[in-house]
């Protein structure tokens, strides 16, 4: 027969101060783990793949983010007029928008400067994105006017972002006329008419063209099946129609550009900060985890030595060493579980709290919130449990190995 769970539970209650202190050590570890991973999660949510597959971005070859890209007006016009993959509406107009992008200095409300993405957009920008950004306060900007609309999180974090205020871009004042909400990182940007932006900033090139496309048109021109069969024989991955288009476009002397799906582009914008936060979380959890294990080990060692006599009695009435080991291990795992629960309680109020950081890939400020997910919580609880078990293993072994006669003699 195994020692009942109640035995372990009762022991925890008797030594409640010790249990609580040890559990708090584990709780802190778990809280830090959850906190950093919630940040990482919130940040990555901004760039998670969404919308339809047929949304693509044209950039200058070699550019890894919009900021580095440049597309001349001439190139852009050829692109819109001639590329067969770009979808067209009923009137035959391309479903594409020319956009400019620049990270501009803004004053944070809590002091200090940061870089906020300023995007010059066209009417079409609102149509190609899915779901389309929507105005939640004020009104839509007027095309051709010196007006901007700002992403909602910015209004609470930056100076000069309220409706009615003025934003001066180099020499030209732009009026904030509305606040918008949009999916992902777009939601933390400032948008204005691309032509007005380019003139005010004296930047003659666009940074990207965003368009809805049908990559399969390339199949009419290129026998992709034969190419892929050949690649397969060489052990290479098959090409997608988009990759064939991309290769074509890069070699086009008039429009040497790269084409990348928005999904893939977004995924490439999180690498540095995500890796940084993950590294920080692992480092902190490892170090704090060691401290927590040491604490748990101490508590359990004390528990064992205080109950030496009791263990002797248990052994004398026929409990096997394995069962004693199990009972102490369960006790320690329970401390871990209590710690895990406490840790989640500590971190729970942070869920949804909005914050900002610099995305190291684009070097611009992004607004996001702590986003605790069930997966993070489950992982944290698992870690807490594990910390308890690891800390308890050695003391439990010591209890299991006690000789009944010696143990009974102990007072």
């Amino acid at each position: 027969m195994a020692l009942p769970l109640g035995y372990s539970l009762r022991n925890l209650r008797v030594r409640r101060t010790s249990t609580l202190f040890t559990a708090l050590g584990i709780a802190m570890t778990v809280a830090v783990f959850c906190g950093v991973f919630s940040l990482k999660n919130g940040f990555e949510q901004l760039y998670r793949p969404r919308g339809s597959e047929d949304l693509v971005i044209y950039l200058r070859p070699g550019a890894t983010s919009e900021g580095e890209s440049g597309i001349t007006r001439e190139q852009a016009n050829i692109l819109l007029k001639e590329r067969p993959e770009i979808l067209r509406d009923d009137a035959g107009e391309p479903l594409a928008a020319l956009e400019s992008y620049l990270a501009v200095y803004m004053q944070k409300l809590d002091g200090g400067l940061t870089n906020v993405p300023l995007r010059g957009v066209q009417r079409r920008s609102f149509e190609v994105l899915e779901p389309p950004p929507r105005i939640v306060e004020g009104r839509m900007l007027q095309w051709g006017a010196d007006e901007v609309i700002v992403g909602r999180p910015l209004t609470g974090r930056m100076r000069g972002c309220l409706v009615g205020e003025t934003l001066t871009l180099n020499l030209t004042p732009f009026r904030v006329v509305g606040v918008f909400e949009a999916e992902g990182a777009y939601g933390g940007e400032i948008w204005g008419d691309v032509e007005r932006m380019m003139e005010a900033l004296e930047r003659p090139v666009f940074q990207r063209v965003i368009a809805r496309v049908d990559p399969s048109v390339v199949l009419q021109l290129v026998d992709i099946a034969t190419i892929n069969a050949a690649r397969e024989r060489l052990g290479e991955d098959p090409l997608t129609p988009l990759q064939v288009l991309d290769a074509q476009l890069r070699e086009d002397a008039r429009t040497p550009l790269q084409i990348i799906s928005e999904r893939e582009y977004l995924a490439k914008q999180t690498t540095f900060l995500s890796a940084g936060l993950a590294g920080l979380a692992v480092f902190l959890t490892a170090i704090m985890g060691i401290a927590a294990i040491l604490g748990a080990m101490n508590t359990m060692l004390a528990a064992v030595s205080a109950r030496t006599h009791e263990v002797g009695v248990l052994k004398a009435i026929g409990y096997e060493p394995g069962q004693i080991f199990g009972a102490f291990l369960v006790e320690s795992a329970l401390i871990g579980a209590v710690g895990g629960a406490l840790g989640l309680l500590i971190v729970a109020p942070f869920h949804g709290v909005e914050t900002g950081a610099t995305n190291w890939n684009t070097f611009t400020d992004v607004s996001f919130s702590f986003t605790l997910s069930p997966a993070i919580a489950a992982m944290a609880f698992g870690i807490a449990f594990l910390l308890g078990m690891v800390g308890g293993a050695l003391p439990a072994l010591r209890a299991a190995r006690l000789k009944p006669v010696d143990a009974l003699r102990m007072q």
Partner: protein
Amino acid sequence: MKVPWGLALRHIFEHWFRNLLTVLAVGVAVFLFCFLVSLIVTLDDQVEEASQDRVIVQSAVSLFVTLPLDYLAKIAAVPGVGDVTKWQWFGAYFQNQSEGFFAQFGVDPDPFFRMYERDIRIIEGPNGETAPAAREAVHLAMLEEKRGALIGQALAKKFGWKVGEAIPLTCTLFPRTDGGAWDFVVLGIYEKQRANVDDSTLFFRFDYLEDTLRNGGATGPLGSGTFFVQVAPDHETAEVIETIDALFTNGPQRTKTSTEAAFQASFVSMLGNLPLFLGTIGGAVVFAVFFSVVNTMMISGRQRIRESGILKALGFPNLTLGALIVYESVLLSSLGGLVGIGLAFGAARGVRQKMANFFPNFAVGPETMAIGFGIAAGIGVIAGVTPMVHLMRTKPTDAMRSEG
């Protein structure tokens, strides 16, 4: 009656395993504390050691907008302005975009060498010269060789670059039209003298970039992201800043001039809440370990209730008993503090190498170590007081009857 201090040591050794765990726990906490605080201090040092009489002119609009090159002559004509150099971010990498990434700046050699005389020490010249002769040699060699580069010693170590070696760098900001890499030749190696510079930067000739852009060898914005300006002695920095910005209020590009210190501070501010965040975590760790040590000392206190009863019966005053347990506790936690400081000191080297792009100047300073040790000792005092009070309150007769 004499205080039996030896008793505390005996206790420590009797339960050596448990006490070792406590020492290690405090050690880990102090390590993490020192480590996190040092990250923040490193960032602050960059700001504090920056020069107050060196000012930086940049676009008022954006970090990514370059200023027209003819601004240089206009700035140089401002009263109170000494040397002026262009200072352009290059953003290239060596072989691999994530691991081979480091800072490169295009500068004008003459003013650069004059302005940074005290900030960097050149330790190796083109023909094996060492300091101080290397400075003059590298300066002259840079004027001769257009592709010449001066690199920090950490960079030289990381990539194993030697003086005289040609290094190809791939640049996404200024891609070469032939699709190839930019070539540089290492002419000298420097060592930073102050925290506002780091040992992981490459300086090259701005005119190499400029001429390549002009003759179509590469594409990208032609201009300088910033101008570094030395304010002449006996001139007010604030006044010079004002005059420079006033020059360009009507364009074509408005400027924002700030001292080097303020410029560095703006980069730290872009890290957002990171310093606050790290500080909070440091606090949480200390707090968590504090509980763990209190816990151990309470266990320790409980285990000697009977012994303390005996001591009381022998006539030792209450205070002696209390002092003994606090002594034991402080001894353990101080030892842990030393372990933690040792760990942090050892880890600093690793950080400088692995995270050279973010914290090239990372070091654990003596103040940080002192605070870390103080915290450890403080934890020991407080952790000892709880069981002390308990022991002092217990009556000798009850204590002796206790089973511990």
